[in-house]
């Protein structure tokens, strides 16, 4: 086996500016698409529960189509298909002094649409998981259905929605790698071009894998702390994080001594 360790370490610890830019773009696109997908997903979920048939049907069709087609196909249709048909072309934009590539905007739009269908299903099941007695109590306390949703149902549903939201974000970060197909220079595409210049395909993609792994690991830790803080807010006794427990074990006074001093 040929493995260029020096190239590997160099790529891992002192990546090129292009690689870092790709890494940053991966994070930024993921975050923006996730936030937008939650907003759109909430609207779709509420439409799916609406009194009006038109909204319910619209939401149903949206979820059906988006979940039933590959994200790769959706992205190509949105960015390349629409432009080829002369319907809509994503142009480069200057926003807040940054040049935003048309492909990046198309990527965010595409990932938002794709993700929102899944998010709306998570929201829908989260809302349904809240006990019916809660909306009754809210009604008896003279809340309108909208007020009950705002104050009683959504806050409780949120707790059950956070873990699947986190998982969606996790997979979204990995899904960004397919944006290379529409020419978004995120981490994967940058790595591809490095590989085609250096022929160190194995080394550079191991580095890429480690960077994705770092992203998802960091997110897992963040997600766990969000869940802990939500638990605290509804009075569930909080188990401290693994790190904190380890630390307190290492630093605590041994049991016998503590008892003696008490």
């Amino acid at each position: 086996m040929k493995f260029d360790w020096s190239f590997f370490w160099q790529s891992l610890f002192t990546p090129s500016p292009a690689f870092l830019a790709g890494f940053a773009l991966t994070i930024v696109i993921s975050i923006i698409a996730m936030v937008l997908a939650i907003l759109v997903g909430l609207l779709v979920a509420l439409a799916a529960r609406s009194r009006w048939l038109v909204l319910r049907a619209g939401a149903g069709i949206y979820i059906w189509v988006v979940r039933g087609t590959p994200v790769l196909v959706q992205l190509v249709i949105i960015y390349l298909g629409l432009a080829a048909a002369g319907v809509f072309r994503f142009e480069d934009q200057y926003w807040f002094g940054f040049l935003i590539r048309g492909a990046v905007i198309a990527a965010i739009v595409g990932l938002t649409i794709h993700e929102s269908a899944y998010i709306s299903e998570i929201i829908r099941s989260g809302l349904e998981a809240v006990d019916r007695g809660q909306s009754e109590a809210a009604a008896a306390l003279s809340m309108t259905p909208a007020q009950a949703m705002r104050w009683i149902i959504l806050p409780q549903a949120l707790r059950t929605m956070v873990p699947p939201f986190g998982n969606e974000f996790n997979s979204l970060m990995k899904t960004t790698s397919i944006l290379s197909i529409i020419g978004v220079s995120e981490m994967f595409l940058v790595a591809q071009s490095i590989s085609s210049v250096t022929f160190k395909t194995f080394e550079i993609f191991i580095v890429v894998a480690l960077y994705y792994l770092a992203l998802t690991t960091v997110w897992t830790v963040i997600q766990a702390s969000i869940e802990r803080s939500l638990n605290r807010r509804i009075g569930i006794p909080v188990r401290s994080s693994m790190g904190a427990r380890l630390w307190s074990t290492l630093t605590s006074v041994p049991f016998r001594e503590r008892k003696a001093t008490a």
Partner: protein
Amino acid sequence: MTNLNEHSASSEAAPSSTDPLVRVSHVSRSLGGQKILDDCSFDVRRGEVVVLVGPSGAGKTTLLRTINHLESHDEGEIYVAGDRVGYRQTSRGRVELSARELARQRRHTGFVFQHFNLFPHMTAVQNVWHTPVHILRENKVEAKDRARALIDRVGLGPKADAHPRNLSGGQQQRVAIARALAMRPKLMLFDEPTSALDPEMVGEVLAVMKDLASSHMTMVIVTHEMGFAREVADRVIVMDQGRIIEEGSPDAVFTAPRNERTASFLAQVR
């Protein structure tokens, strides 16, 4: 304990203080061809405590819930403080009120559920002040003070900042009563408030309700606690198969029931 319902006695927009606060008139409701409620009529005067009893499936809970329009009815009319509950009469027949109008109407009525239905994402005292602050738009500081006072009065002062999941059933139900009282209701409806409780916790909830009754709160209570009914009720209504089969003072109903089905029901629960 001091007066729990300082506002109910002097209710403002009363048509006349001699009119009944609640008037249920020929109310029926069918579900799948079956009559859940069959021509039920009764009045509740201001300050009166009315207890609904009867075998399970008799329609007591349904009847109670129609008073707050948590359950709709097909025929008949219900009035609370002179307002038609749930519907408006138009030239084309009756029309159900909008969600907003229903919400406004429910401001005068407190409802206590069998399973408490406290909001688990709020502490006990938050459960109590949430509606006054966020829905009724009362002054936040005053509403919070009042909530603490209400929590104190149901005997849960030290538990005010606990979440429902860390309270016993009896404690949760007392918080639920305080929460309903925070809306300054003219009428309190209780749907089997002690049925979901362990036996040793029934007493603490009944004590709060007795205290409420003695401060002249108007109450309609569905319960299986016959001893409590006898002690607190001004009037007992007996239901069976969706119909009101007997109505009278507790003494009359419990010692000398006129209806034989009342007699057999009472014999079973005794």
